[in-house]
């Protein structure tokens, strides 16, 4: 099946960022394991734990009980907190175990693309929610009524800016008739990447309306064309489209105007729009026109890069200068 093949090849292209997220997940699992083992040993039965940690070389050579007393931790932790952390440990381990499947989404035909993406991100977000709960528990500021929900679902709008930097890319299988991609704009922040693997009849430029200055947008035929997209250190959306659709790349660059950023490789005729339920021909044509307009350079587009803002001289500079002036170096 063509679609499956493209998905696995897309996953291969995105291996770097997926593995980075998994590394962060694995680190978090180990973080929680560390905290848990400290807390558990503070609770009871630390001798056995210490004996195991010291390894078999220590057997018969080190008195593990004594070793344990020496390293006793004074932290007092209640059983409920330990239990909560154990749940989180399981949650994170489970997410780590899911490997690639955690980033795969399939939109049922006739389904709502936006909701499927939001749902997938909310599930991934449980990792961030869990991390927050750990932090709050550690800081003794956890309140079940406020924070319990974080581990069940942690929707995108709650994500912090740094969480938006490390979230993994999503690979979404969707039918052409359901590519209502403009609704995905709210998720294009941080370094969030979304790849739509589109099958069946598809509008010619479903991503055109997402080409804002800082977002990498690409409609391509093959996953191998996603290298630049994957490497880009900002948000991006890609669609692997059938032959009838436009092929273009929108690469954000500092001080570049839209015609510098947008390169169109293939543009279907305006009459190539397809009959699709819920996407009128006019709407589809509008997307194509937007694309053409963004890509068209005005006749006199020779404007050089504007001069960077000049920073105002800070107070500290003046202070330092004054200090230096005060010190008569020659006199020393």
């Amino acid at each position, binding site marked *: 099946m063509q679609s499956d093949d493209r998905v696995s090849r897309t996953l291969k292209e995105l291996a770097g960022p997926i*593995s980075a997220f998994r*590394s962060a997940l*694995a680190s978090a699992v*180990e973080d929680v394991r560390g905290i848990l083992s400290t807390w558990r040993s503070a609770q009871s039965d630390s001798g056995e734990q210490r004996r195991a940690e010291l390894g078999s070389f220590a057997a018969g050579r080190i008195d593990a009980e004594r070793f344990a007393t020496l390293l006793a931790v004074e932290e007092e932790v209640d059983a409920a907190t330990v239990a909560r952390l154990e749940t989180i440990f399981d949650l994170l381990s489970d997410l780590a175990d899911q490997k690639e499947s955690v980033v795969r989404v399939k939109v049922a035909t006739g389904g709502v693309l936006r909701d499927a993406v939001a749902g997938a991100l909310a599930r991934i977000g449980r*990792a961030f929610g869990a991390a*927050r709960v750990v932090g709050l528990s550690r*800081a003794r500021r956890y309140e079940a009524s406020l924070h319990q929900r974080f581990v069940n679902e942690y929707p995108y709008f709650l994500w912090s800016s740094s969480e938006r930097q490390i979230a993994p890319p999503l690979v979404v299988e969707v039918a052409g008739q359901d590519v209502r991609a403009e609704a995905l704009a709210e998720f294009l922040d941080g370094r969030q990447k979304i790849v739509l693997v589109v099958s069946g009849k598809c509008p010619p430029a479903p991503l055109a309306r997402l080409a804002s200055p800082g977002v990498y947008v690409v409609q391509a035929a093959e996953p191998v064309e996603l290298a630049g997209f994957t490497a880009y250190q900002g948000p991006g959306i890609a669609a692997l489209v059938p032959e009838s659709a436009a092929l273009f790349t929108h690469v954000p660059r500092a001080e570049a105007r839209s015609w510098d950023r947008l390169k169109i490789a293939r543009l279907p005729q305006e009459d190539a729009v397809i009959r699709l339920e819920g996407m009128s021909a006019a709407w589809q044509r509008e997307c194509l026109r937007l694309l053409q307009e963004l890509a068209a350079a005005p006749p006199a587009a020779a404007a050089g890069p504007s001069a960077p803002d000049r920073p105002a001289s800070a107070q500290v*500079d003046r202070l*330092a200068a004054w200090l230096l002036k005060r010190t008569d170096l*020659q006199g020393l």
Partner: protein
Amino acid sequence: MSGSQFSLLDGDVCGDERHLTIEDYSSAVPRWCPGCGDHSALGAMQRLLESEQLKREKTVFCSGIGCSSRFPHYLKTYGFHGLHGRALPVATGIKMTRPDLNVFAIMGDGDCCSIGLGHWLHAVRYNVDMVAMLLDNNIYGLTKNQTSPTTPQGHKSNTQQQGSYLPALNPLSATLGITNCSFVAQTSDWTPAHLFQTLKAAFHHKGFSFVRVLQRCPHFTAGIYQDAVRHPDNVELLTHSAGICEPEAEGLYKNHISHDPSDLHEARRLAEGGNGKFRLGLFFRDESRPRYNETRALPKYTAEEKIEILNAELDRYAV
């Protein structure tokens, strides 16, 4: 340089992020002599921390031994005040294992260019993402006036009382001569705004950013840059839209050399110096150079996954 995420848990999960002031970044009161160039470098660094709002717990200053190496003690961040000449190996070990940290290495001229020379040259080649600042006052100050590798030839010191015998080592050309060099700039203690802008550019560069600060020791080398301080004509400012732009210095110093920092050949020529002028600015920058901390970065595994991998290893040795 910018720190990346290490674990999901290393962000400030409690979300209290208040704006940090210069005072928040300051620790003990510096005990350098009045007029020491280190004050100027510290001021610029504090300003950088403040303007970038760097997380204090995510920032590490490594130093060696010497006056300049007290630097970390005056900042409210993590610090490692180690051995003479050996700030860079420690900094390298930190950044390789903790890419989420902002790492700075602060060295003096004896530190970097004499006892730690091997580490310096190799650090340039590793191109580990950090800022390395050479506070170069041309003398050993802490141990009271001994010749350093950058002491001008003929300058008298306690160890070379007839005047330094050897021509001074040029840290800029040395750095620019090393394969995989990615950022080299020079600034001075008497141009604090330029010093700040240089640090800022160094901080934002991805790779090993080498910044040499020309500075004076009020006791032993107070006069070495008098020509430049008194007569701005003796300074040549490297300017370019891709370089370091600092209007105050550009106004004060009329001699501008337009230098494209991507031009390594020209950078080397300019670094060689000429006609006794002091050149400040960005000599070279190339972000495309491979960074060792990234080359060597590997995915992380949980304890159970590691055991699975190790068991496969043991299978290879099974009887």
